[in-house]
């Protein structure tokens, strides 16, 4: 598939990230991401960080979200390239944490309450209702999180972060524990979120190679190198350049299947 696109300004840069607790968890993690521009549409970015369970993905996730400080290095986000701090980046954790004592409507209100752009109460309510309709959540606004299925809670969690106005949203294992049918809907939803704004950027941290690659335009493999302690980026894949991005039927294409197998072997 040939598509016209250009890579513009730098919007995410991880530089010399290392994290050490009792042992070295992450070592020399470096990667960057540019704003991808396609004429005539809002084209956001979807980046996958793929790695085995226990390799340090969640720690990298927390560093990128500004929730923990790395031992060395910095993560800079946005066109201004400011060092990340908590609140700059939206986070959708693996178990879709929500405020269980609040209804879905109230949870979403919490998302919009401290949004980048201040809105009146009426505007906030209208915005929530509009987005809830997009996310197929209108019928659940009066319910409590405990009354929703895993997939529905995930949608609320994503929408809550979208409403904060953050362009960056990190998703920790978004396909984990979901059945095939729900995964297809999640993929559809993530693509929808990524194209809501030109600068919207989703970072998927997952061990699910196939689903992650299928919706990404870039992918980095987080793994350990032989005889070296700590995980690092061992492979960077530009899926657009490889002709493996933005194709709804990509899962059936031979080069894609080969790439998935190749990464499986590397992990």
């Amino acid at each position, binding site marked *: 598939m040939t598509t016209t696109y250009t890579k513009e300004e730098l919007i995410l840069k991880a530089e010399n990230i290392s994290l050490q607790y009792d042992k070295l968890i992450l070592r020399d993690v470096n990667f960057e991401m540019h704003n991808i521009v396609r004429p005539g549409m809002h084209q956001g970015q979807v980046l996958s960080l793929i790695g085995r369970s226990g390799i340090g993905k969640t720690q990298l996730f927390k560093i990128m979200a500004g929730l923990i400080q790395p031992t060395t290095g910095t993560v800079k986000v946005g066109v201004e390239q400011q060092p990340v701090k908590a609140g700059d980046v939206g*986070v959708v954790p693996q178990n879709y944490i929500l405020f269980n*004592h609040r209804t879905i409507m109230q949870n979403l209100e919490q998302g919009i309450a401290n949004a980048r752009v201040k809105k009146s109460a009426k505007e906030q309510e209208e915005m929530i209702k509009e987005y809830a309709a997009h996310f197929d959540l209108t019928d659940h606004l009066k319910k409590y999180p405990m009354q929703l299925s895993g997939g529905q809670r995930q949608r609320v969690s994503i929408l809550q972060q979208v409403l904060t106005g953050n362009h960056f949203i990190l998703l920790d294992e978004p396909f984990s524990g979901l059945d095939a049918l729900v995964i297809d809907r999640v993929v559809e939803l993530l693509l929808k979120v990524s194209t809501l704004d030109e600068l919207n950027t989703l970072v998927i941290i997952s061990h699910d190679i196939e689903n992650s690659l299928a919706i990404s335009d870039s992918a980095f493999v987080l793994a350990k190198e032989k005889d070296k302690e700590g995980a690092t980026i061992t492979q960077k894949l530009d899926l657009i350049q490889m002709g493996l991005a933005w194709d709804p039927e990509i899962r059936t294409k031979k080069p894609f299947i080969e790439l998935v197998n190749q990464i499986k072997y590397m992990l």
Partner: protein
Amino acid sequence: MKILKNLFSPFTTLPRSIYWVVVVSQLILVLALWQVFATGGLIPTPLKIGEAVIRIVTTAYFIDNFFASLLLTLKGMGISIIIALFISYLSLVPFFYPFARFVVKWRYLTLTGLIFLFTLLTSNGSQLKMSLLVFGIVPFFVTSLLHIIDEINVQEYELCKTLRMSNWQTLWEVVIVGRLDQVFEVMRQNFAIAWMMITMVEGLSMSQGGLGTMLIKSNKYIDLSTVFAVLIIILVIGIVFDYLLREMRHWLFPYTQLQVKKK
């Protein structure tokens, strides 16, 4: 036969009707054994205790004492929970953390040894009872509340940070509002401790009456039927309040019912 087998198998759930049959059968069995073995002995039989209960609850003397105890317990609980909440919430501020942890250790202090000190510090019997009650309950409340705070998933705090809440907003949302239902549960569980302590502290100043005073006076005259009757009344009132507080929790915090159902 299958029901009988289920009765003695671990991890099996009985139908509600069978459960109540088991409860009533066991109660009847215990009362029957009690009646048989206590007849002619020092311990009063269930029938005699039953008669004493009916005699006591119909007197104005009981009503006065019951309300004296209940009022003191509720007042003590109210003051204790406010103090305990204040200490527990402050425990999240590093300066106050050691103090909160120290209060937890007060559970091991015996009130008996502190009566003299509290007598000096208070000006009348009513104040003495209240102070001892509050001092006795607060460490148990703080222990339970700190456990709730310790159990909060760190991801909830992280969620607040990603939603750009300040530390004080996070404290309000996650610890105060988010755990209010559990505070109610702590109150329910510790009502038993307060109710147990009430009879003890009432014995210190008997002029104002109360169920504790009734118990002590009956014990003094070895009126065991009345002693057992008062104990039964105390037990029943405790169970009723436990039920009322549980129902009130479900009514005030509807999502707690969902959590129960999910279990």
